[in-house]
């Protein structure tokens, strides 16, 4: 295979074309630097034709899970939620608990199938140790990230109203508002709000009032001011043609996960399309296998990658890309895997250690009145009130996501309800239709996402006995859900029961009847949980080299021309979805890199220059 990229010199080589890699590539190319992006998976989602094929794949898939439109290449395998039960697949789960989340290795990354929730972390989330005596503090405070949150909201294109979001100590600068107006609340949200707004629950003696609240979403709505929504991307990788269609508003496809058919929801391909294409080279189907380090200087001197032509085959050729600065933006798990496979770190390294997620419970029920389930974005509102409070000294915080997708995620509805009506209840004809019309629109679903604290025992490691078809290591996952989190689960499940009672919703929560989920126990109570796809903590950031892998600019302490970026840098994750926070961090990192590259000198006295 001809490999022009191998003979070219770049300022920056980035592994990963997800949200982190795309944001950094966009800003560095516009600053005049030449950037190479290596993406392990296929680049097919970057053209309209390719994207349409993914959509058809989803329509025809028997199981419509998060991964259904995005089949992996043989060379770049990925975890699949269906694997958790079978024990097969890409991850090697060494227990004791199952890690419930998945991600996608493709150009665009997991933003191809994210829900789009863009909550900022709370000020208190950055100071968990100082304020509550648990977990860790970040080396950054909310105020440090605030300007980057604002920029990230404009990069992603977030629809929300500041008036809804200024709570729990979150502050916005005077005159700031989100680039687009909030997405209308679903009818279901409105019905629920009518019955539960203002009800109080008690956590650890603290009385907290609940409210159904619109959350910020990376979906196109009605723009504010001069903001121009970004639409579907149609790129020709070989030529430099790039069309971004006018940003179509969310049409309520009810399939944000696993695929937005009209690209009204943000995906990282939109950001990559906004890079200076004259300075950018994107190589899809290029699996980064190793970071090469000069043993004398400790600086990275190349990134080895495996290029494959056929996604159905592991046949590949090996190449090396060189630049002045290197960025691993491949995913929290993949970043750790690449560093470990490169032999970096050593015995006391924190690389891979501290893996977190938001283990989440489902609660589902039958509303006394139709709420119009199975319509609209998958979710438009949540209950955010239990994300903060003094109870965090005792157990995990949590947030409720209110679904608009009926029982799809929990039991496999509406199909499961139809099958039940036909085969178990023996209905047919107009009686069947009337039964479904009377019940399906009343389906209600909550996801209760629970915070998890960092523990070094929860880790990504590699083992030469477990490799993929390319000979690259498969991630070995050690994972345990501790009492702090199961305490949050117990509280969340109790609040869900109280909310159902208040709203007159018949509680149908029965994990045995639904899909299969892994379980944890607490005091005899069994909690079935699923992952939220919120990986974090595998290359933690900190103030000092011995206590962290990267500094506050996500720059490796050991290899000063290497940046390791993404939610792997998070010391804690609070209860917010990580994408917005990692986008803010990526923008802060891009700003720092621009200054460092322009200066062509070490950032601090006494450090070797390699830029």
């Amino acid at each position, binding site marked *: 295979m001809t490999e022009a990229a191998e003979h070219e010199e770049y300022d920056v080589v980035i592994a990963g074309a997800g949200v982190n890699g795309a944001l950094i590539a966009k800003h560095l190319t516009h600053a005049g630097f030449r950037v190479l992006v290596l993406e392990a998976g296929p680049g097919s989602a970057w053209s309209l034709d390719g994207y349409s094929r993914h959509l058809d794949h989803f329509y025809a898939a028997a199981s419509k899970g998060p991964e259904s439109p995005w089949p992996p290449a043989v060379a770049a395998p990925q975890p699949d939620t269906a694997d958790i039960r079978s024990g097969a697949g890409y991850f090697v789960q060494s227990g004791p608990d199952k890690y419930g989340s998945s991600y996608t290795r493709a150009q665009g990354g997991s933003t191809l199938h994210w829900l789009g929730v863009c909550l900022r972390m709370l000020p208190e989330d950055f100071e968990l140790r100082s304020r509550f005596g648990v977990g860790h503090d970040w080396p950054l405070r909310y105020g440090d990230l605030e300007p980057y949150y604002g920029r990230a909201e404009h990069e992603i294109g977030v629809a929300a109203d500041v008036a809804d979001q200024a709570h729990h100590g979150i502050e916005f600068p005077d005159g700031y508002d989100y680039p687009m107006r909030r997405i209308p609340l679903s009818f279901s949200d409105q019905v629920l709000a009518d019955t539960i707004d203002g009800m109080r629950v008690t956590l650890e003696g603290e009385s907290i009032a609940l409210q159904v609240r619109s959350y910020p979403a990376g979906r196109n709505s009605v723009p504010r001011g001069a903001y121009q929504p970004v639409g579907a991307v149609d790129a020709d990788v070989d030529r430099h043609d790039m069309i971004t269609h006018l940003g179509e508003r969310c049409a*309520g496809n009810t399939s944000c996960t696993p695929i937005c058919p009209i690209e009204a929801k943000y995906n990282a391909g939109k950001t990559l399309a906004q890079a200076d294409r004259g300075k950018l080279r994107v190589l899809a189907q290029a699996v980064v296998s190793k970071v090469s380090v000069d043993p004398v200087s400790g600086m990275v001197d190349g990134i080895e990658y495996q290029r494959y032509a056929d996604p159905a085959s592991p046949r590949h050729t090996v190449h090396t890309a060189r630049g002045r600065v290197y960025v691993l933006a491949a995913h929290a798990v993949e970043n750790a895997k690449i560093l470990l496979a490169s032999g970096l770190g050593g015995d006391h390294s924190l690389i891979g250690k501290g893996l977190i997620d938001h283990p989440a419970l489902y609660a589902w029920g039958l509303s006394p009145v139709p709420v119009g389930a199975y319509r609209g974005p998958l979710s438009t509102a949540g209950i955010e009130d239990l994300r903060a409070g003094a109870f965090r000294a005792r157990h995990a915080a949590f947030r409720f996501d209110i679904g608009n997708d009926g029982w799809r995620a929990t039991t496999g509805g509406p199909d499961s309800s139809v099958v039940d009506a*036909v085969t178990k209840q023996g209905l047919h004809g107009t009686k069947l239709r*009337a039964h479904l019309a009377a019940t399906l629109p009343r389906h209600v679903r909550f996801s209760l996402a629970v915070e998890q604290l960092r523990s070094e025992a929860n880790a990504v490691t590699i083992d030469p006995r477990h490799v993929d078809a390319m000979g690259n290591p498969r991630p070995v996952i050690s994972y345990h859900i501790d009492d702090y989190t199961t305490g949050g689960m117990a509280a969340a499940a109790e609040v869900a029961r109280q909310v159902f009672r208040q709203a007159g919703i018949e509680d149908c929560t029965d994990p045995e009847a639904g899909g299969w989920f892994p379980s944890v126990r607490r005091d005899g109570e069994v909690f079935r949980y699923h992952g939220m796809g919120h990986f974090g903590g595998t290359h933690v950031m900190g103030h000092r080299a011995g206590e962290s892998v990267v500094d506050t600019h996500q720059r490796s302490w050991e290899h000063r021309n290497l940046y390791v970026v993404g939610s792997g840098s998070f010391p804690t994750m609070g209860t917010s979805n990580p994408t917005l926070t990692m986008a803010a961090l990526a923008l802060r990192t891009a700003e720092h890199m621009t200054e460092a590259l322009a200066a062509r000198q070490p950032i601090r006295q006494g450090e070797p220059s390699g830029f």
Partner: protein
Amino acid sequence: MENRIDRFVRLSALLTGFAQLHLLGTGMAETYLRATDAALPAGVLDELLAAGSPPSAGSASPGGPALPGAAARPGVSALAGGTDPEAAAGQAILGDAKLGPVARTLILLWYRGAWTALPQEWHSAYGAAPRDVDHVVSAEAYQAGLQWDAAGAHPAGARQQGYGAWASPPAALETESAPGTTAVRLPRQAGAPTVTEGARS
């Protein structure tokens, strides 16, 4: 004279509770007829169609003579004459050991756009066809599933209702004339109703 596809659609209307015109409007009738033929041992679908035929059509045996098995059953024809054809079809077909499971699979096919494999006991008794395995018939079939219409909703990822439509109450159950007639069902307004933001404030 009624051809095979007409008989298939007429029986499907009795089984699903959706009017024939609605079923024809999905554009899936011929695809489903083919998918059903492919997933059943030879002759079973014709047996089912014969059992579901009304007296006038049944006695005239359009589309070929009724199979011996079907003739021996108290089909819809025997029960007709003032009886609700839907209830009659249910009694004649759904309670039948051979045809009942096939009819239920046909209902699920229309509602879900996916074929559901018949039970193992059924295979042992009546034979198995290679395509009798769980499968989504096609991308189009998934989108045409009646379950979404029954819910006043739309298939996830398709036939979306438009920006902000989700803020309005769901469509009330639309009344249709008795299945088997040709009542015209107007589609829901495709455009989104005006959204009144702040309706809850």
